[in-house]
């Protein structure tokens, strides 16, 4: 997995490539800080697959941002990834763009 972050004012865009799974999820959460961020964007266009560990990262981010009065947006989910989000019932909760 490869993680790149870009900060623009109070919007943090995290561009992820590879897979988000049990092994990579801790690396992902360690790769950025949401302090002062109002809008968190996960660009997962380059993500091959997301396991439940990845879903948990998304959920954690979602809850954190909502609690901080911010937003969490997932961008560029490939059909396979979108499918996992759909199956786990998060497609209506996450803000998908």
């Amino acid at each position, binding site marked *: 997995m490869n993680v790149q972050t870009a900060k623009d004012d109070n919007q943090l865009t995290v561009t992820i490539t590879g*897979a988000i799974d049990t092994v990579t999820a801790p690396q992902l959460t360690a790769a950025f800080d949401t302090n002062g961020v109002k809008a968190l964007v996960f660009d997962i266009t380059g993500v091959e697959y997301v396991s439940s560990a990845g879903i948990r990262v998304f959920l954690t981010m979602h809850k954190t941002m909502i609690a901080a009065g911010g937003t969490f947006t997932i961008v560029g989910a490939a059909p396979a990834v979108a499918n996992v989000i759909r199956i786990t019932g998060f497609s209506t909760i996450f803000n998908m763009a």
Partner: protein
Amino acid sequence: MMNAYRKCRIAIWIGATLASAVAYFASDAVESRLACNRLESEFGPAMRNMREEILVTADSTLYYIANRIAASGARVTGTTSKTARLIARRFGLDEVNFIGTNGAIVASTHRNKLGYDIGTDPDPAKAAGFLCLLTNALWYTQPPRVSVATDGAYRKFCGVRLPDGALQLGIDFRRLNHDMRQHFADIAVEWDVAGDGWYVLADPATGTVISDGNPKSGFTPGTLTPAPSLADLGITDEMLSATGRTFRATVSGVPARCRSFLMPESDLRVVIVLPESIMTRTRKASVITTMFLLMAVIFIAAAVGLRLVTLRERAEEMRLAEEKRLAADLALAHSIQTTSLPNTFPPFPHLADRLDIFARMTPAREVGGDFYDLYLIAPHRIAFVIADVSGKGVPAAMFMMRAKTALNDALVSADEDLAAAITSVNDRLAEGNEANMFVTAWVGALDIETGVLQYVNCGHNPPYVRRKSGKVESLDAISGPTLAAFGGIPYSVHETRLAPGETLYLYTDGVIEARSQSDMFGEERLVKTLAAADTTSSEAICRAVMRDVTAFAADTPQADDITMLAVGFNGGKRDFPATLEGLAAATEYLRLFCGDPSAAIIIDEVASNIVRCSGSPTFDVTYRVASGHAEIVFTDAGKPFNPLEVPAPDVNAPESERPIGGLGIFLVRQMSESVTYRREGDRNVLTVVLSPPAGS
């Protein structure tokens, strides 16, 4: 079935019997001819003897009469012609002359003889004969002759000496016969011909029998009234007309060869009768002798023939026994050879879920030079070989065992360096290879965790791989020349990879060089058969090729060994430590076989569960293709734990009520065809059957 030797024997017996029969008849015919000739030869002397006898008898009869007259005191002096006529009547004589000392006839039955000087007889012998009576001789008989006085009849004269001259008596033979039969009647009775033959004397004018020498007739002249004729005895006039020639007749009931002659001097018919039994008797002895000799020759020949037949038969029997022994040896060799090849399938039962191996060798003769072999060279590595030794039969089979042993020794310890192992095998086989044998071989080493296949091809037919796509691909890289041909040659190793569900098919040239009447099976047909097989089963593939080759060759006999080996790689299995690193490695490992994201998610979910919760130090992952679908099997030695019993999360619950756990196994179930759990011994076994890829 009757064998040839028995036929020969019967033929010899029949031949000997026929030859004997022919010999019998031939010798019989020859001997008959000889016997007949012997019989014929009896007639001449018999005839001469009888003639002599008749004349002697006539002589002695006349002399007897003359002597009686002389003894009665007859004198020349004072005897008149009248007295001469009286004497003639008294003794039944035809002529009586009294001769004076001067040689002149002084008294005679015939007037014209009176005064006739016997010394003037035109026959000097006769003249001398009777004249000598007047000087020194006591008696004299003259051979019968035709006299002037007898009208051409034979007359015989005899003379005796008287005190004063001589007495001359003459008698016609006709009278001798008629009136003095008694004298002749005994002749035939006393004499025989060649033992069993006899004479018959008869009056030629009437045919009346005078004397019959047949010992059985007991004929005494005068005792039968009337006396029998020759016709009564069985001798006809027609037969008698053959004077001087042999004729056949049944005389007094005895079959005989006869010959007759007339004795003009004596006016007698003489018949010589030789019973045919004489001929038979003499012939029998001869025939038996000849037969015995011929039979001896025939049976010696037959015995020699039979002996030869027996010797040939014994040689044949020995040859057959030798052949049988050789066949038994070959059958045993066949058994040794076939059992020396791995022929229990699956060869590695503990790998049977990932390796599908089948092989088949069909030698053209009892033993062949083809072979294949299988080796487990490391827990995760197998090796296999298919090879074809040059030539066929026993030499090929012996070299095959050598090559097999050398390969076995090198490969079981080959582990990593396959090329070095083969190089050493080649050196070992090339050494002392006086017979210049060689062997083509294709050696593969398959990593059963990854499907990586290393191979060394030593001049062998390139094998084929049935790819997952259905394409049949030839592995045509060459590593070096055939084994055993030259030592000191390095062999190189090549590499490819088998994906789960792919099958490697190895064969010897007996497959593609199988012949029909006009064509060879060829590689194209082989590729077609391999591509057409609607199965990944190695056994089914081998059987399909075998069936097509057999159908193609039809009745054409198999010329070369046909050998094939199919190695199907159905998937890999590897152990991992139950750590995050192990989990990453397992994910990476699975990518070798499957690029599908679902599979990656499944392995992440299940393995992370094991790493987190099982307490097992390791776990293993198997990816396998079986009966058309792919499955991943996880096992671990942790505490019994069935993840399927974890309640499914409520994915429709409000965000705040969502539990953070339980999602993983839920995802696995959602993304797979089926998930099953079982406890096997002290291991948890979770089998996840993957959904078919989208679009298939």
